[in-house]
C-alpha cells in the first residue's frame, strides 16, 4: 500500500486576479509547478518515480519530467475526468515499489478549472484517504475533482500535507477574458532564425541547473558552486562535492532592469511585440549563488532591489518549433501561501 503524503496545487494568478494563465504558461508549466509543490523538500526513494499524467500535456515534454523531479520516471497516462482521477488515486495507493505522483492539469483559460494538481504517494502500511476517493466523484474534470477532494477532506487529512493554491481558487463563477494574447510557438518562431541559435542539445545540457537550481556544495570549504562545473569554484576540489538543489522561492533581488525600446535579444522580439517591455532581475538564491531571471505575472518595474521573488518554470521562447522553458521570477506578494 501507498499513502498520500503530499498534495500540491497550482492555479494561474495573473496580474489582474483573473486566474487566467499568463501567455508564458501551459499545461506543462502548470503541472511542473504543482509537481514541485508536491515533491520539493520531500526526497522520494527508491527511484524511479511513477508519474500518472491526466490531461492534455504536450507529448514533446514527457522527456522533460525527469529534469523537473530530479529522478528517473515511469510514465502512465490516465483519463482527465473526475472518474479518471479517482481511478488513478486508487491505483496509486495499491501495491508496487517506490513512490507515485498523480498529476492532473487543465489548460483551458476558464475561471476555476485552469491549473494543475499533483498527489505524491509513498509506500506505507495503509493510506488514510483510501476510502474517501469515491465520495468526490462527479461529472467534472480531474482538476475540479481534485479540488473537491481537498474541500471535502483536505484540512482534516492526517498525514497528508496540502501545499499551494488549494484555497485560492473559486469553484464556479464568471468566465473572464484571458488577460493577454498568447503567442503560439508557430508565431513566436517567426524571425527567430536571426536570434541566438541555442541548439536543443545545448539547451538540454544544463537543465538541472536551470530548472531545479541544482548546485554543488563542497564539504571541504563549504562553498556552493552554481551552476555546477564538477569542481569547487573556491578550492577546486573535485572529490568533496555533494549535490544540493538551491531554494526556488524567496530569492533576494540584487539588481533589476526593464528591457524595452529594442533592448531585447531578437528571440524575444515576438514577446515584446505582443506584451511590451519586461523586467529582468538578478536574484540571490543562497549566499554566493545568483541567477538571472525574467520577471513574469507582474508589471515591469514592479520588483525592486531588496524585494524577494519566487520562481516558476515558464515558457521562454520558441526555437526549432518547440517551446524552450526556464525559470522566471514572480513577485512574492502574488504567490499563494504554502
Amino acid at each position, binding site marked *: 500500500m501507498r499513502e498520500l503524503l503530499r498534495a500540491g496545487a497550482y492555479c494561474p494568478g495573473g496580474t489582474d486576479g483573473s486566474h487566467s494563465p499568463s501567455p508564458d504558461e501551459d499545461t506543462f508549466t502548470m503541472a511542473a509547478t504543482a509537481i514541485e509543490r508536491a515533491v520539493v523538500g520531500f526526497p522520494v526513494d527508491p527511484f524511479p518515480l511513477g508519474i500518472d499524467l491526466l490531461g492534455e500535456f504536450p507529448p514533446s515534454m514527457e522527456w522533460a519530467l525527469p529534469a523537473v523531479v530530479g529522478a528517473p520516471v515511469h510514465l502512465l497516462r490516465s483519463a482527465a475526468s473526475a472518474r479518471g482521477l479517482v481511478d488513478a488515486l486508487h491505483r496509486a495507493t495499491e501495491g508496487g515499489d517506490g513512490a507515485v505522483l498523480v498529476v492532473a492539469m487543465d489548460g483551458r483559460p476558464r475561471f476555476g478549472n485552469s491549473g494543475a494538481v499533483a498527489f505524491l504517494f509513498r509506500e506505507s502500511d495503509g493510506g488514510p484517504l483510501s476510502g474517501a476517493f469515491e465520495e468526490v466523484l462527479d461529472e467534472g474534470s480531474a482538476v475540479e475533482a481534485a479540488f473537491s477532494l481537498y474541500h471535502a477532506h483536505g484540512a482534516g487529512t492526517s498525514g497528508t500535507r496540502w501545499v499551494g493554491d488549494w484555497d485560492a481558487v473559486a469553484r464556479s463563477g464568471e468566465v473572464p477574458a484571458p488577460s493577454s494574447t498568447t503567442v503560439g510557438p508557430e508565431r513566436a518562431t517567426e524571425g527567430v532564425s536571426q*536570434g541566438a541559435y541555442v541548439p536543443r542539445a545545448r539547451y538540454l545540457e544544463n537543465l538541472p541547473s536551470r530548472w531545479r537550481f541544482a548546485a554543488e556544495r563542497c564539504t571541504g570549504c563549504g562553498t556552493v558552486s552554481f*551552476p555546477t562545473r564538477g569542481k569547487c569554484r573556491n578550492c577546486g576540489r573535485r572529490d568533496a562535492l555533494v549535490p544540493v538543489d538551491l531554494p526556488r522561492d524567496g530569492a533576494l533581488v540584487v539588481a533589476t532592469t526593464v528591457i*524595452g*525600446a529594442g533592448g531585447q*535579444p531578437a528571440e524575444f522580439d515576438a514577446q515584446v511585440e505582443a506584451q511590451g517591455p519586461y523586467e529582468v532581475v538578478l536574484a540571490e538564491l543562497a549566499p554566493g549563488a545568483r541567477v538571472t531571471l*525574467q520577471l513574469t505575472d507582474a508589471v515591469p518595474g514592479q520588483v525592486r532591489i531588496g524585494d524577494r521573488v519566487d520562481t516558476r518554470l515558464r515558457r521562454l521562447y520558441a526555437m526549432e518549433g518547440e517551446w524552450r522553458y526556464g525559470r522566471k521570477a514572480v513577485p512574492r506578494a502574488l504567490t499563494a501561501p504554502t
Partner: protein
Amino acid sequence: MGHRAAIVGAGHTRFGALNEGPRALLRSAVDAAFASVDRGAEPSDVEAAFLATLGFGGWQIGNSAAVLGEEAGITGVPATRVENACASGGFALRAAVEAVASGASELVLVAGVEKMTDVPNARRRYWLGVSGDTEWERLAGLTFAGVYGLIASRYLYEHHLGPEALAAVAVKNHENGALNPNAHFRKPVRPEQVASAPRVADPLGLYDCCPVSDGAAAVLVVPADRARRFTDTPVYVDGLGASSDYLAVQERPSLTQFAASRRAAEQAFRSAGCERSTVSFLEVHDCFTIAELLALEDLGFAAPGEAGRMTLAGDTRRTGRLPVNPDGGLKAKGHPIGATGVGQAYEAFCQLRGAAGERQVPGASRALTHNVGGAGATATVTIYAAG
C-alpha cells in the same frame, strides 16, 4: 621599469555608419599609420601582424588576419586574429607589445576593424549578444544593454545616486566627440535629452548606450630602443595589464566592480612603475555610461561611488582635473568592436605627441587606456608615456 615598447605610427578612419567595407577601412587605417611615421616605415619591414575583430563584417568569420595582410601589403608575415569581443583591440596591442619586448619581432602591425552596419538589426543583436553569456543572461532576455542595466541599477542603489550621474557621462563624452573629426557623434547633447530618451534597459536609455559603428584603426609597434629610428617623438608603452573573469555577471561576487579591470590596472601600474597621479588623461571603455563610472573606480581613480560625483562635478571633462575620454569615448566616437581598443591607442599616440588638435589635453605626458570585453569578462589596461 622602463619602456616595454614604442608606438611609432598610428592611423584611424572615421567611426560611424560608413559606406566602406572592412577591407577598405583596414586599408585606410593601415595606410594612415604608415604615413604617420616621421622617418618612414615600409610594409616590407613588418615582421608580424595582429588583427583585432569580432566578426570582421559577418561574412569573413575565419582567417580574416590574412585579409589584413593583403590590405596592408604584408602578405607573407605571420598574421593572427585576436578576438576578445570588445577588448579584442587591447589584447591585440598587448600581443604586439609582448612580441617586440621579447625580441621576437622588430616591427609589428596591429589593426582593428569592424563593419557593423551591413548586418541586419536582428543579426547584429545576435552577433553582439553571443559575446555575452548565452545560457543564463541571454535566456532571461538580456543583451549587453540589459546586463549593464542590471549593473547600473545596482550602482545607483548602492551609492544613492540618480540617473543624472549616468547622463553626465553622456553629456561630457558628446562634448568631447564634437571636437573629434573621426567621431560617430559630433553633436553635444543636453542632460534633458539623455533623461527623456527611450529606455532601452532601465535605468539606461538610448543616450546611455554607445552607437553601432563601422571603423578601423592601426598602430605600428617597435622595440623601445629602436623607436628613434622612426621618429623623434615616439609614444612608449610602459605598462601592460590584462585579466579575465566569469562570463556571466551572476557568477561574480560584485556587480559594481569589474575584477578583471582591477587586476589589469594593478598589473599595468606595477609594470609601469608609476603613480596614478602622474597620468594626464584616461581613455576608458564606456560602452554604456555606467561603464565609465565603474572604470574610474576599478582603475583606482575614484573611491566606490565617487565616480558619479566626480563626473557631475565636471572633474572628468577635457578641461577638468582628470580628463576622461577626450576623443569622445565609445559613447560619442563610436564602437566598431575590434577597432575600439586600437583606436584608444591611436588617441594616446596623438595626445602624447601634442597632435590631437582641438581636443588636445594640454601638457599630456602620460596616458592610460582601458579596454573591456563584454560586461567585464576580459579587460586590458595599457599605460603610455610621451617620448
